[in-house]
Each structure stands twice: as structure tokens, then as C-alpha cells.
């Protein structure tokens, strides 16, 4: 028995660690550093119907124990992702979670319908929480009615289970979580970035060309953990947790709070080997804590 294995809707993960969407491209760059088959799964960069060139630069800025980004969903578009990126990833024994984004509901439906048919796409992640595009994105993620509707529409056309990615920029995350569960979501991924800004102190100008950006990294971990902990109490579908994970203790904390698996975003930039390193450290950590399997650990904070 593989003690790190986790079973989730559509996903038989050999371990609970995966790179977060947008922080790993479509895997090609990290494939030069290590074997991608080591990963539990890969959340690929957001895919939209059409090619997107994203926002002007600067697109990133450093903040205390975090960073801002406003990439603006740059991606080659559905067709090229289906033709080039996904087939290339087939050489690895790793399930792909396709991050789906768009401006209108039809865009999400269109991307979801096609991309869910790729043989190695085992689940979709509906990005209703991207703070860096003017329309769509986060607006879907802050209104429970709209979130539920979108979830339902995508669920109808998808050939694989769907996970909805929640925004932390809301008053009541449980409400949104319950809405997407009602809409038929098979799981939840959370959290996306917090909206933030950095200024160039000399000029007073925002550093990010898009003015605001999404805050990620260790700085947001307390917020992410709190939201995972709360949502875990309110829904019965599984959660893939993320937000500031960089150490093995962070992984344990997210699992304890109720996440069934953990995604790693910003930390890939700090240490490109962070995912395989965490996977390697996990068994020893389980031993240290006296747990036989990852699954036993999931949600333990709620059972104390």
C-alpha cells in the first residue's frame, strides 16, 4: 500500500503534492529539472478559448514574505494547449488538472467541454477567482448565485470531475463553497490570491503595470489555512488546499485543516525542486507524527 496515496474524484494521486496553476506553466521547464511523474498531479496554467497575451509588464513584485502577480492569464489558447501542451505531458505518468478560465460563461463551458476530453486531463479546476483580468475571473467567484450557475453549466459539459477554485477576497467564503457544492462541484481548490498592491516609493506609482495584483506566498498562509479550515466544516466535497505552502510543516497544516491534497505555487520560484522535496520528506514526517497514511491526517484538527 502506498501511504501517500490519496483518492479524489477523478484523481488517483500517488501523493498529495502538486504544483499550483500558473506557477508551473505546462510543465516543460520543470521537466528539465526532475521527472514530472514524481508529482501527485499537475495543475496547468489557466487555459482560455482564445490565445491571451496577458497584461503589460511589470507583472510581478515582491512583498514581505510574498509576491504580487498580474500575469493576466497569458496562455496559448485552447487549441494549442490541446495540440501541443497536453499531448507532450502524456509521456509522464501524472494526472493533469486543467485550469479553465474565461470572460463569459460560454467561454468556460467551451474550454471545459473540449479540454475535459484530453486523455490525461483527469479533472478541471474552474478558475472563478483570478483577480487579474478585468472581466470574468474573480467576478464569478464573489457572487454565490453566479458561482453556482457557472459550476452547473460546466458540470453539464465536462467529461471529468470539476473542482472550483475559490477566491479569498470575499466576506463569506463558506457561502461560495456551499454554492458551488450545490452547483455540482466535485471538489474545491483554494485559495487563489489576495488582491494587493505595491508602490514604487520614489515615484508613487504602482509597481505592477496592471495596478493591482494577486498576493501569494508564505504571507497569505494564515488566511488560506483559516479558509480551508472553515470550508471543510461547511462542505462535504474534498478540498485541495494552497496558499503559501513551502515547507513540509505547511503541508501537514493544510492536511490537518481539512485539505485532502496540497498545491504549491510561489514556492516553486524560490526553490524549483520544492515539490519533489516535499514528496520525499512526507513519509518521514508521517512517521514523526505517528500517522500511517496521509488520509488519516486529513482533517485531524476537526477531530481533536
Amino acid at each position, binding site marked *: 500500500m502506498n501511504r501517500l496515496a490519496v483518492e479524489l474524484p477523478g484523481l488517483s494521486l500517488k501523493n498529495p503534492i502538486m504544483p499550483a496553476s500558473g506557477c508551473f506553466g505546462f510543465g516543460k521547464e520543470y521537466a528539465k529539472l526532475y521527472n514530472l511523474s514524481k508529482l501527485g498531479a499537475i495543475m496547468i496554467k489557466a487555459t482560455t478559448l482564445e490565445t491571451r*497575451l496577458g497584461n503589460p509588464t511589470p507583472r510581478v513584485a515582491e512583498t514581505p514574505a510574498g509576491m504580487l502577480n498580474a500575469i493576466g492569464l497569458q496562455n496559448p489558447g485552447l487549441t494549442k494547449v490541446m495540440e501541443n501542451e497536453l499531448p507532450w505531458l502524456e509521456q509522464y505518468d501524472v494526472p493533469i488538472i486543467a485550469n479553465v478560465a474565461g470572460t463569459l460563461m460560454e467561454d468556460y463551458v467551451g474550454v471545459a467541454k473540449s479540454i475535459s476530453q484530453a486523455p490525461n486531463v483527469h479533472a478541471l479546476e474552474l478558475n472563478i477567482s483570478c483577480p487579474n483580468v478585468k472581466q470574468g475571473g474573480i467576478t464569478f467567484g464573489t457572487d454565490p448565485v453566479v458561482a453556482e450557475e457557472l459550476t452547473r453549466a460546466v458540470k453539464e459539459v465536462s467529461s471529468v470531475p470539476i473542482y472550483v477554485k475559490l477566491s479569498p477576497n470575499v466576506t463569506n467564503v463558506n457561502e461560495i463553497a456551499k454554492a458551488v457544492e450545490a452547483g455540482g462541484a466535485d471538489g474545491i481548490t483554494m485559495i487563489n490570491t489576495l488582491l494587493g498592491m505595491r508602490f514604487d516609493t520614489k515615484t508613487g506609482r504602482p509597481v505592477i503595470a496592471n495596478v493591482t495584483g494577486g498576493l501569494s506566498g508564505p504571507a497569505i498562509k494564515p488566511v488560506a489555512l483559516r479558509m480551508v479550515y472553515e470550508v471543510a466544516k461547511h462542505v462535504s466535497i474534498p478540498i485541495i488546499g494552497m496558499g503559501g505552502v513551502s515547507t513540509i510543516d505547511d503541508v501537514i497544516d493544510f492536511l490537518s485543516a481539512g485539505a485532502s491534497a496540497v498545491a504549491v505555487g510561489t514556492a516553486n520560484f524560490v526553490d524549483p525542486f520544492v515539490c519533489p522535496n516535499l514528496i520525499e520528506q512526507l513519509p518521514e514526517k508521517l512517521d514523526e507524527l505517528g500517522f500511517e497514511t496521509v488520509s488519516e491526517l486529513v482533517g485531524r484538527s476537526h477531530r481533536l
Partner: protein
Amino acid sequence: MIRQEQMQVVNQQQIATNIFELTLIGQQVLDMKQPGQFVHLRVSDQMEPLLRRPISISSIDKETLEFKMIYRADGRGTTLLSEKKPGDQVDVLGPLGNGFPIDKIEAGQTALLVGGGIGVPPLYELSKRLVEKGVKPVHVLGFQSKDVVFYEREFRQLGETYIVTVDGSHGHKGFVTNVLETLKDDFAVYYSCGPTPMLSALERMYPEKEGYLSFEERMGCGIGACFACVCETTKKTEADYVKVCSDGPVFESGVVRV
């Protein structure tokens, strides 16, 4: 091959006001192929500052496994870097990117190397390689003022060298373009690294010449995965965009929209 390596500080030296030369030793040096490549450094084990810093390789010694960088201690990260002492470790990801091509020029030809400020360092390894190959380099190096001029002697040893300072406190007064206007343009290829306005001035000045320009952009990953460092392109290439970190930082003149 890109490696992540704990490299050891061999030497750290202030060579001009706030300008430091840092020498590191490690296996990664063996993989450093082209002048103009860069490394992505972690300046601290702590979570703040969080991101790596991109710094160009300024000279490579495969025999001793040492390489040098020259950088300005300016913000938080580079200031922390300047506090490293011999024996300390630095987490280095590299070598990264594509540097200056030296196969585009032949022995006996002249190369024009134009550097601005903290863009000067990668030109040093480039010039050494060109000289090794039998190419004659002409260096035009611009700085703000006398106190931040560095490596003048080193460049002079390799070839003709013009120093320009904005305030005229050393060498010629003005911008590199002021000196370039006075020089013959009998060079085969030009190479440049420095502020974007300087790079675009060069493109305008030498529209017919073959040139290679090194660009800077804010980075996340440094290896091509995050789309942080994207530049718009011109019709000269089929690509809709290029990434400074993995497609560059050096591009043929005219490729990047400036």
C-alpha cells in the same frame, strides 16, 4: 543543464560606490556556456526577501570552478547579498538563459560592445571570449558618474575602451551615443547590455547592423514557467512574445519591441 547549488563565497569586494564584485565557487561553473547568461540567487534562507534575484555572470573560470558577478547593492536583496562573506553559502540557480552569440563574428573582425551601468558586467566575459577568438573589441561604457565606474582597466586590457559619464566626472561627458557618433562604424556586430532607452537608441543608430541586445525584466521563476518576464515582439519573429529569462536575456536587435 540548469542546477540548483549551494555555492561558496570565495571573495566579496566593493569595486565602486555600492558596486560589488562577488566570486563564487561550485560545479555549476562547468555548465556556464555563453557570456550573457545569468544566475538566479537566493540572498537569504528566510522568507523575506522571498524571491530570487537575477544577476549576470561577468566572468567564468572553468579551471578554478569560480565565476564572478558584479552588482549594485541597491534594494533589500542586493544589500543582503553584499553582506555575504567568504565561506558563506549562496543558493544559486543557473546558468540561465541564452547569452551573446560569439559564432556570429569571425576572427579579424571588429565587435562593438556597448554597456550602460550595471549592464556592463556581462560584456566583460563576452569581450574575453571575443579576444580569445581573435575578434577586436571596441568598448563604449556609460556610467552615471566617476564614483560608479568599474572595470575600466580590465576592459582596456582587452581593447579600445571609451568611458562615458553622464555628469562628465570621468571620461567623456554625456551618453554612450555621444561617443558612438564620433566612432567609425566599421564593426561587424554590436553587442549591448544596459537600460532599455540605450538599447533602443542603438537599434535606431545602427538599423542595418547585426546586433545582440540583453534585456531586463522583473522575474518570478527565472526558467520560463511563470510568464512574468514576457516582452512584446516585432514582426521580425514569428513568436507572439518572448520570455527574457528563457528565450533571452539576449535577443537579436529588432526582435523585442522597445
